[in-house]
């Protein structure tokens, strides 16, 4: 029987719920703080994301990726939905919220997921400005227009950097694990 925490949750294992919150609560909370407007919003968002995780746990297939990337996908979807439905204010920009933006060190981060390692290897092949566009968009929640304004970079270039960067990581992940596509 699989030991995946999500599959155990799907079977109604209460202990797995606590384990999931313990293991991934920090990840979800960090992402929610980064991509929410206020701490109260971040708390609401964290609850929203976990409810979605409980609802989606039955669809997790460990042959298609790790628990962690599945949860990060759900978190990103929810946070983007929330950002879009809110007003046009930018997400929290406090030093606190951005402290959690810290790149993993593939050789020295024992808990890094395989997918994050693949992403790091792909990102290492990008130019610094391409990597910066990805960081601002994916980690700090800036829109392409906001990135363009902040970096003084043409919008078309931002779009191109974002597109190429994502495709590069996507290709790395598919090369490492052909045929994989996480269904969430």
């Amino acid at each position: 029987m699989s030991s995946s925490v999500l599959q155990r949750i799907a079977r109604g294992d209460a202990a797995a719920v606590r384990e999931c919150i313990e293991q991934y609560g920090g990840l979800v909370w960090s992402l929610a703080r980064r991509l929410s407007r206020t701490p109260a919003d971040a708390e609401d968002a964290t609850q929203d994301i976990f409810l979605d995780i409980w609802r989606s746990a039955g669809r997790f297939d460990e042959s298609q990726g790790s628990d962690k990337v599945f949860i990060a996908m759900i978190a990103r979807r929810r946070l983007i939905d929330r950002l879009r439905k809110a007003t046009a204010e930018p997400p929290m920009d406090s030093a606190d919220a951005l402290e959690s933006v810290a790149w993993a060190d593939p050789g020295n981060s024992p808990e890094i997921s395989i997918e994050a390692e693949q992403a790091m290897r792909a990102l290492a092949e990008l130019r610094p400005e391409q990597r910066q566009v990805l960081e601002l968009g994916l980690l700090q929640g800036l829109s392409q227009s906001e990135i363009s304004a902040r970096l003084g970079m043409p919008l078309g270039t931002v779009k191109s950097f974002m597109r190429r960067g994502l495709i590069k990581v996507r290709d790395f992940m598919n090369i490492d694990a052909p045929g994989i596509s996480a269904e969430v």
Partner: protein
Amino acid sequence: MSQTGPQNQPDEALLDLLVKQVTEGLSPAEQRELDVLDSATASSYLRELERAAAAITLAGTARAEPPPAALSKRLEAQALDFLATTGRSDAGNKVVDLNRPAKVAAPRAAAWQGAGWLAAAACLILAVFGWVRSPQPASAAEQRAALLARSESMKLDMSATKDPAAAGVSGDVVWDPLTQQGFLRFVGLPQNDPKVHQYQLWIFDATRDQRYPVDGGVFDIPGNASEVVIPIRARLPVRTAKAFAVTLEKPGGVVVSAREHILVLAQAG
């Protein structure tokens, strides 16, 4: 699964939409554009881009700070309540298990400010208790009756809208603001096909932005049921419930309803 060759890569316009959806979401106009262009290849590619974005996000989140203790407790209570109300051990695609609704919490004298927290703790205790000790939990109808007997509870009659799917529907809402628990009772609400549509409850909280009511849970109506009682699962604490509305949505529900199919309404005061 798809090859990574350019023959399976969406064209640039579609790719730009997919990237935007993954990174910042689409405007309604862009979403309509994507719906027109969308294809199986695009959907598959979208999932791969989402996965890539999630991997980058993980790579850039090497330091994760634990959530506040109170939030962790709420998450755990919410999860256990969710699992209990959905009978998740054999869930499959079932959204609401009418035979295993949330337990009604014991009365508490706490002030409102702590009610959500206390309700969560009560749910946690009762949900666990229910799993371990109660092989035959009370039916939803019995629990609704028990909740209705509580002095803090409110009962609102539902009225059907002019939506054709709501013709002849009646029912009520029982809601206890202290424990944040409640039940919907319907007569005549048509059976839905969960693969096509699901019902979703929205709770309008007078203290929140009215454009964004609290999601009260997604549910199904089985066939051959003259009266159906559904436990309410509010995603967020509801401080002052002023109205309840049920809409018909895509399977799994939505974050923000377009309110195209509002079927029934119940209003306080």
